[in-house]
């Protein structure tokens, strides 16, 4: 630090930063992107390994052999479901009781803020059924959960069959040390959310539900099961949860161990594991998987019912049986055996899963990138903002001193206090106005949907999305309104101060996001940083404006959608992309209200106002 408190050296350093700013910024940005792309390559990806002692050294012997039972239960369930048109609660209760569980039900209802077009629901009500296997000689202090969501459209009857058959098998064993809850939820994730809130006796999303009659202590881990078809050729594992939370890596390792043991074909993001890591092909495929995971995690939506468990610090993952028309088909017994193994190992746990990583990226099922290795990518990107801010700060303070001026002769220039204070006062108006726009973006679409439907021929859901876009676009008209307010001020210093504030604000936000949800932070940084660094009211303005619009949060979302479908090998046409974009907006708002997803408020209240500040800088006169 002595280097910086010596004024002479400080000036030399400052000159270096000022002169080399542009190349340094470019270098840093390229380094960030390059580092990220390199994450899929072997020195940075490591093999996964089991950290938890209680689950590591010994293997268990799986004995589940209830293939006929699974099919029988599934057939009966499907028949009863078809007959009643809803979840056959009475049949489930009776069946669970007959296999020896304590059975309880929970009814819930929820009025969504506006109709959900993709799932075609508005007033949602349903009943969850759960049975508790009480562990002998244990006082119900800990439990494990196996849950099967039953959506309105997806039948998932094979999964219910497997759940019941596993329950029957588990009930006959004496080695359980933790209670096991077998949960069948209706209305897929809404049911899971209702059950979890009732289990923890809180209300975070305005769900109305009946209180639970039976509990089983602190839930240690949960597995959600979805079998979309009767034939399973591979199992897909989903880890990304609400707001980008991830389960402890050991849970995934555990599942992968049993997949290997049982010879099951497991995929991650629908992609097989690359076999060959020495050539370029393997890592490239891993990079695609990694990008899919980043997009999925950045969306902040639960990628399965397990995602909602993570809020309560319950390690959870979703296992999906996929029929991808491969040659080898798996009997449900094989899946059941893998699940039995997973549960027996979890039963061995002495402590909660905590040994392994909570922050990681997965380029393949058996490879991971730890937080220490991926963070530099985001760090390099944020460094650009820091460098730019430093440059502006120096320019503001030493504006009178030309960088070429000989150092020793003249005294240092005094800080330009009057000008600076004028600059700060002029910042208040744009800051307030852009924040107000953000607030309007957050509040108005849902509040004003009824007004909109009265005056325009649109449905509620459309009204919400269109209001959202309208307010978003209206923000672009902001410079004209703020200009009048600040026209009297010194113009040159004004935009510099505004940009300085905006840069610091953006850097802070992105740093915070990157710490909790790296994917989102990185994605936003990679798109927003170049435009934010370049923007100034002189030079090729139309180019800057295009760049800014193309990197605004909404455009990032649109771009991500295209990238996502491209990586999934199902490319989108422009029109489809637009439709998907509108649906994604509606889903984003809905998920904020139904599950407490934070992406929508974050964009509306944090990043959008910040982006507006840059827009403001661009059109400064």
């Amino acid at each position, binding site marked *: 630090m002595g280097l910086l408190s010596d004024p002479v050296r400080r000036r030399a350093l400052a000159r270096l930063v000022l002169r080399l700013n542009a190349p340094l910024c470019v270098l840093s940005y390229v380094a960030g992107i390059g580092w990220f792309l390199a994450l899929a390559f072997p020195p940075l990806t490591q093999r996964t390994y089991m950290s938890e002692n209680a689950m590591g050294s010994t293997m268990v012997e799986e004995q589940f052999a209830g293939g006929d039972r699974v099919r029988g239960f599934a057939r009966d369930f499907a028949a009863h479901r078809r007959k009643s048109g809803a979840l056959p609660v009475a049949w489930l209760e009776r069946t669970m009781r*007959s296999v*020896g569980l304590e059975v309880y039900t929970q009814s819930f209802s929820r009025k969504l803020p506006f109709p959900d077009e993709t799932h075609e629901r508005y007033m949602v009500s349903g009943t969850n059924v759960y049975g508790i296997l*009480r562990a002998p000689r244990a006082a119900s202090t*800990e439990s494990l959960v196996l849950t099967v969501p039953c959506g309105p459209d997806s039948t998932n009857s094979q999964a219910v069959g497997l759940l019941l058959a596993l329950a029957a098998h588990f009930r006959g064993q004496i080695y359980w040390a933790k209670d096991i809850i077998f949960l069948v939820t209706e209305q897929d994730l809404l049911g899971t959310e209702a059950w979890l809130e009732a289990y923890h006796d809180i209300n975070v999303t305005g769900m109305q539900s009946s209180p639970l009659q039976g509990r089983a*202590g602190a839930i240690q881990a949960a597995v959600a099961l979805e079998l979309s078809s009767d034939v399973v050729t591979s199992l897909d594992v989903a880890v990304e949860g609400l707001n980008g939370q991830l389960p402890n890596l050991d849970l995934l390792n555990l599942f992968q161990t049993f997949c290997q043991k049982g010879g099951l074909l497991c995929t991650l993001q629908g992609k097989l594991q690359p076999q060959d890591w020495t050539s370029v092909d393997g890592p490239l495929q891993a990079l695609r998987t990694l990008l899919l995971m980043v997009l999925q995690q950045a969306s902040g939506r639960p990628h399965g019912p397990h995602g909602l468990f993570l809020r309560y610090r319950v390690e959870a993952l979703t296992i999906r049986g996929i029929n991808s028309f491969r040659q080898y088909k798996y009997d449900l017994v094989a899946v059941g055996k893998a699940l039995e193994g997973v549960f027996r190992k979890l039963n061995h746990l002495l*402590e909660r899963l905590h*040994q392994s990583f909570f922050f990681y990226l997965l380029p393949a099922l058996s490879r991971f990138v730890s937080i220490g290795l991926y963070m530099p990518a985001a760090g390099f990107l944020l460094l650009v903002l820091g460098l730019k801010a430093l440059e502006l700060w120096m320019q503001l303070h030493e504006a009178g001193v030309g960088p070429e001026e000989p150092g020793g002769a003249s*005294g*240092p220039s005094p800080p330009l206090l009057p000008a600076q204070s004028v600059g700060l006062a002029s910042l208040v108006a744009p800051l307030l106005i852009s924040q107000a726009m953000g607030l309007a973006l957050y509040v108005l679409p849902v509040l004003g949907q009824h007004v909109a439907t009265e005056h325009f021929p649109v449905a509620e859901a459309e009204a919400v999305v269109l209001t959202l876009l309208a307010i978003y676009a209206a923000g672009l008209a902001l410079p004209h309104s703020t200009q009048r307010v600040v026209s009297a001020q010194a113009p040159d210093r004004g935009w510099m101060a505004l940009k300085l504030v905006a840069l610091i604000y953006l850097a802070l936000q992105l740093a915070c996001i990157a710490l909790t949800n790296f994917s989102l932070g990185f994605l936003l940084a990679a798109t927003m940083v170049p435009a934010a660094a370049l923007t100034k009211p002189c030079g090729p303005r139309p180019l800057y404006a295009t760049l800014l619009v193309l990197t605004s949060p909404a455009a990032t979302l649109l771009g991500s959608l295209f990238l996502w479908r491209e990586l999934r090998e199902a490319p989108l046409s422009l029109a489809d992309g637009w439709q998907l974009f509108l649906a994604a907006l509606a889903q984003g708002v809905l998920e904020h209200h139904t599950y407490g997803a934070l992406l929508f408020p974050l964009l509306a209240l944090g990043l959008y106002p910040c982006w507006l500040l840059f827009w403001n800088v661009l059109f400064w006169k």
Partner: protein
Amino acid sequence: MAAALPLAVLLLLLLGPVGGGHAEPPRDTLREELVITPLPSGDVAATFQFRTRWDSDLQREEGERITLEKDNCHLLVSHYRLFPKALGQLISKYSLRELHLSFTQGFWRTRYWGPPFLQAPSGAELWVWFQDTVTDVDKSWKELSNVLSGIFCASLNFIDSTNTVTPTASFKPLGLANGTDHSFLRYAVLPREVVCTENLTPWKKLLPCSSKAGLSVLLKADRLFHTSYHSQAVHIRPVCRNTRCTSISWELRQTLSVVYDAFVTGQGKKDWSLFRMFSRTLTEPCPLASESRVYVDITSYHQDNETLEVSPPPTTTYQDVTLGTLKTYAVYDLLDTAVINNSRNLNLQLKWKSPPATGALNRGLVFAEAPPVPFLYAQRYVSGYGLHNGELNTLLYNTHPYRAFPVLVLDTVPWYLRLYVHTLTITAKGKENKPSYVHYQPAQDRLQPHLLEMLIQLPPNSATKVSIQFERALLKWTEYTPDPNHGFYVSPSVLSALVPSVVAAKPVDWEESPLFKSLYPVSDSSSYFVRLYTEPLLVNLPTPDFSMPYNVICLTCTVVAVCYGSFYNLLTRTFHIEEPSTGGLAKWLANLIRRARGVPPL
């Protein structure tokens, strides 16, 4: 001489018991009893009770002779016959009035199994009334728990001031008592304690017949721990020696309850037999016992069309009001020679007979209906998420259709959960339910736990919710257990209630009635006393990562802290280069002169 010595020994042996027996009636008696109860859920509960009654006043004799032999006063009563010496010495050494100790593995599920004869909380529980002659109760309590820890091979030495409380109303003496100054009471629960054979063996050794004869041959460890619930207890209390209560006797009651999971052990059938449960049969009574009986509950609860069939058929039946309902028991008296002599052993069997037409159907659906619900049961849980705040909730269910009854709730909460007492709310049927008695003793960090006692009236057919919020404290890093991520236990709530009976109980002779009826005193014929425990809770505290990243975090924090000062310095100070000023006064004077001369200054 060589021949005379054995002769003398023989003579002594012959004379000894005769002489003692001649002088006074037998001073101690043993009664043993086994109750087998098919539970409403289909499981089977077996409760053993062994009662040793000793007509001797351990402590009065001590008082008399204390003047004579001061140094070994606890060895005063030196001849022990049936009463275990280890416990007898404890009574006199620590001046105990009552001692109740239980070890439990599992949880009695009142909702499904009905009210218990004797429930105990999961883990270890110890409560002791000391005589009012004890001066330093806490010291005696500490020593006593350490001694018991040795006797029962249990971690009772973990009982210290942070988990000991003095309840004011919940634990009254069960035996004879003239004063109930609760400052002589201590109560502690260790919910973490794991109970296993190492605790069972010392418990069995206290029995007069050990596990050699009588009912105790059934106590085979590998079967007893193959159950859903296992609870063993020792109760010591003074009782009246005769009906007029002129002098006192000491009663040692050893109880052991187990619940067999019919589903696992019976392969889905409810039928049971002694052999299937204990892998032993009864062959003889304990020769030292004055009474040795097996009771089988044959009141048919449920089961349309199904009838119970017990084999061999009982010689007598016993009908009485137990836990508020009329029960019929088949009685097998092992001292009655006919019971065992017929087949050399007694293997009790119980079969559920159903009409042949519906038999197969019923077998499969035996468990398909929810069992009847008891009048009082409870549930306890922690609510909320995150590691900052939380809420402790206790749900008390009164399912009686029209009668309200009071419940005494005792909560002991460790100090590291800081209770917010102002958030204590008790609601029933949507209204606030004010407790008629509240005793709250706040916790002191690292010294004593919270104690909360309340008397709550439960309205009929209602669920009463008692909730209180808490904040999790940060422990010092050496205070964490070796497995901090497992969570920290909070001991269960204790509910003591007078539950209304369905059938009014008749007053009976206390000494003559079966043992399972005579632990709790009966005060009123229209209700019965029951003590229930809720499940213990597991609460996660904010825990540092005790692994390598923790060191990394510490290191990083140090570096950041060092950097912070410098950066702050840089940001808040401005730096100017000061030209070295030489001369000072001389220069000033020179300049003054120069100005006067009209020459430019230096």
